[in-house]
């Protein structure tokens, strides 16, 4: 072993660099709780924008939700939309700046509760935008209330005994719904709870951006994610819980891919 000895100091130099935070993320420390998947997904988007070289051509739309301050972290232009209205805001931008890349980034309360109408209609019109949908099964921002996507039996601050269908209705699988709409072009469900899943999620999100230039319709990627704070778990526990409980109900994979 000693023969191969090379100190960390010797290793840490530019030419050996294999992974580094992208410049498309600002230096602001993200306000997310430790271990929150929002941070990971933000990073993926920033990396993709860097790789595609579209910093000057992209406009993002932040939701109301924990990611409301996303514009602080992304080193490109963004607008902060009213709760649930990101698809309408993105429609306004994209229709008026059709040559730009426009995307929304929304939580499950934002996209699938208050914003249901805007989501369905943007997808049905086939707006040429990319929609990133962070499904963490809860309202993180406001303190862990039930989301439309909260699983049956899952506890939240407004289903303190676990979600009961008779009181609070069924979980809503929004991606399964919009995949049926003729306006969607590429639809995928991914997660960021393991390095492998992060890699896959990045591929899907990248496609969802690349396809935008084809002007063929809405590209939609759901990211099943965690909310350690809202779920009242450690980050590591939350990712295990996600794999065991969220993924059976929200199975990963591409739901609609363009015919080649």
């Amino acid at each position, binding site marked *: 072993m000693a023969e191969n000895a090379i100190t960390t100091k010797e290793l840490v130099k530019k030419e050996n660099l294999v992974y580094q935070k992208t410049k498309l993320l600002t230096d602001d420390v993200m306000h997310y709780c430790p271990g929150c998947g929002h941070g990971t997904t933000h990073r993926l988007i920033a990396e993709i924008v860097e790789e595609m070289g579209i910093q000057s051509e992209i406009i993002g739309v932040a939701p109301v939700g924990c990611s409301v301050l996303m514009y602080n972290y992304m080193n490109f232009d963004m607008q902060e939309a009213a709760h649930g209205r990101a698809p309408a805001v993105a429609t306004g931008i994209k229709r008026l700046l059709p040559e730009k890349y426009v995307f929304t980034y929304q939580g499950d309360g934002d996209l699938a509760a208050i914003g249901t109408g805007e989501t369905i209609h943007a997808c049905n019109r086939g707006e040429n935008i990319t929609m990133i949908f962070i499904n963490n099964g809860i309202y993180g921002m406001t303190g862990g209330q039930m989301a439309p996507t909260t699983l049956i039996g899952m506890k939240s601050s407004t289903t303190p005994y676990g979600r009961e269908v008779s009181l609070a209705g069924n979980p809503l699988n929004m991606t399964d719904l919009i995949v049926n709409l003729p306006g969607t072009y590429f639809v995928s469900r991914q997660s960021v709870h393991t390095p492998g899943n992060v890699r896959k999620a990045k591929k899907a999100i990248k496609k969802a951006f690349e396809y935008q230039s084809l002007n063929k319709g809405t590209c939609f990627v759901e990211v099943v994610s965690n909310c350690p704070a809202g779920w009242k778990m450690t980050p590591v526990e939350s*990712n295990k819980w996600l794999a065991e409980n969220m993924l059976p109900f929200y199975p990963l994979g591409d739901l609609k891919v363009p015919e080649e």
Partner: protein
Amino acid sequence: MAKIKGAIVVDIDGCKGCGLCIEACPVEVISLSDNVNVKGYHYSYMTDPDACTGCSNCAIICPDGIITVYRIKI
């Protein structure tokens, strides 16, 4: 046989001590420090620098993107 050796650099004050990098490391070389950083978090660090393969798993899973990874074939 070429051996691969890696190293990570953690931005200590950016770390939130979530532990996801620890979970993600295939060779289990990361731990949380007993000390806290300016924000009061127990930050992650390499316990066994020699074992790191530079696979980048830790960096890829880190929600705050604060791990930089280096790698060399030797």
